[in-house]
């Protein structure tokens, strides 16, 4: 046991040092593409770190979000905004001042903190013991994180879903463009080039996509037993769709995935989550009191968690799709308005 802990802390140190190294590299790099790649790596390492710290659910999320979606979005944006950072501006004095003051304050604050892993730290003795010891009787789900997330603190999770919904609407407000149908065909010729050219990618992806989707649904329904749940499932499902868009082009994907429908599903997810609360309210309990959903409290809890996770999954998947479609659509829109002819000629020359 002793040796195991030693090794854990060694891995811990190595991972954290890697994080610091990458952060410093990010400060120095001027090439935004490299910065984004490093940010992706940063996400990967922090997720590994979360596994070392026993936070498997968090690692799961960070894996799909930090390394996946956010890197992807930044990449799309870079293609629209250019790749290099201008070296002109630096006001390091102000920055260093702020950084030193806040950093100093935080270091000062750390000296009275409980040490890493201390068993008698307040957080291990006050609220958490009930979650760990009683949740099996009260909620009946082996994954304590899911129990806390979906039942004890269901309202926080509701807020989280609304946050992601807000982001989707915000992106819609900022980037959506009114499309005219007749322009699709012109765009097709650009976008479909990927799947025409890449025979191997096409075939491999075609094999993969159904499995990715099924894996997402597996994660969705097994959140009670292991790491995973609605949020992670939504992201994975969305990434299957994104893969499809990347390969077959936006216009093909638009035919398969109706944009209006996706927006409705996003709204539906939030409403569905909220309605679970309202039903429990009408059944005489408090908002999100799943005990009243069924005659047996534990069955009620199970049902409630299943339903709200489903709502989360719907919203997250559709919002991620909305976000990606809007970014990609904006890029397409810029191409159309900008130098369409220029593009095509360049493309032809390149091949």
């Amino acid at each position, binding site marked *: 046991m002793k040796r195991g802990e030693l090794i854990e802390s060694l891995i811990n140190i190595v991972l954290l040092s890697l994080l610091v190294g990458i952060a410093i590299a990010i400060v120095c790099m001027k090439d935004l593409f490299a910065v984004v790649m490093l940010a992706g790596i940063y996400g990967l390492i922090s997720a590994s770190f979360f*596994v070392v710290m026993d936070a498997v659910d968090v690692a799961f999320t960070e894996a799909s979000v930090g390394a996946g979606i956010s890197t992807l979005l930044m*990449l799309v944006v870079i293609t629209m905004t*250019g790749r290099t950072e201008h070296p002109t501006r630096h006001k390091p004095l102000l920055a260093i001042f702020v950084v030193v003051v806040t950093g100093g304050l935080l270091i000062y604050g750390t000296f009275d903190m409980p040490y890493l892993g201390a068993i008698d730290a307040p957080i291990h003795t006050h609220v958490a013991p009930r979650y760990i010891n009683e949740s099996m009787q009260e909620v009946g789900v082996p994954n304590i994180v899911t129990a806390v997330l979906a039942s004890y603190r269901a309202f926080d999770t509701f807020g989280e879903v609304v946050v992601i919904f807000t982001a989707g609407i915000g992106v819609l407000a900022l980037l959506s463009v009114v499309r005219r149908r007749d322009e699709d065909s012109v765009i097709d010729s650009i976008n479909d080039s990927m799947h025409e050219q890449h025979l191997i990618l096409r075939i491999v992806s075609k094999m993969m996509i159904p499995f990715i989707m099924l894996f997402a649904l597996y994660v969705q329904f097994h959140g009670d037993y292991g790491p995973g749940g609605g949020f992670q499932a939504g992201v994975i499902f969305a990434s299957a769709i994104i893969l499809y868009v990347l*390969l077959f082009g936006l216009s093909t994907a638009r035919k398969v995935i109706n944009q209006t429908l996706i927006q409705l599903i996003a709204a539906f997810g939030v409403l569905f989550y909220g309605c679970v609360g309202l039903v429990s309210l009408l059944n005489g309990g408090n908002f999100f009191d799943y005990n009243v959903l069924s005659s047996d409290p534990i069955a009620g809890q199970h049902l409630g968690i299943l339903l709200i996770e489903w709502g989360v999954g719907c919203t997250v998947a559709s919002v991620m799709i909305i976000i990606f479609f809007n970014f990609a659509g904006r890029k397409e829109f810029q191409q159309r308005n900008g130098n369409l002819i220029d593009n095509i000629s360049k493309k032809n020359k390149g091949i």
Partner: protein
Amino acid sequence: MLIAATLAVLVVMLLAIIRTVIGPTLYDRILAVNMFGTKTILLLSLLGFVMGRPEFLDIAIVYALINFISVIAVLRYSDSFEFGSKTGEKTAENRIPQSGERLELGNKEAE
């Protein structure tokens, strides 16, 4: 042996990061990130065993999927013309080294 393997993977991760940082071309970076992703999958599988709870391999599977999609995305957009053409990086990548410098390690970043 588990521990040794874990450490080996960590070392390789470090090497991959170095390659990401020094580049020199965009594709070297993508290559390094891709390799880093594979190593993360290994690390995650190993960690499960080191920590004594190997049942959380789903995370590694997700990584494998996400890694694939990321690489495709990077290629999709690096394929697109705007990428780097403005900064003149393309010409740097186009440069073919003379045979004399054939075995030189990593050309300096052209920008």
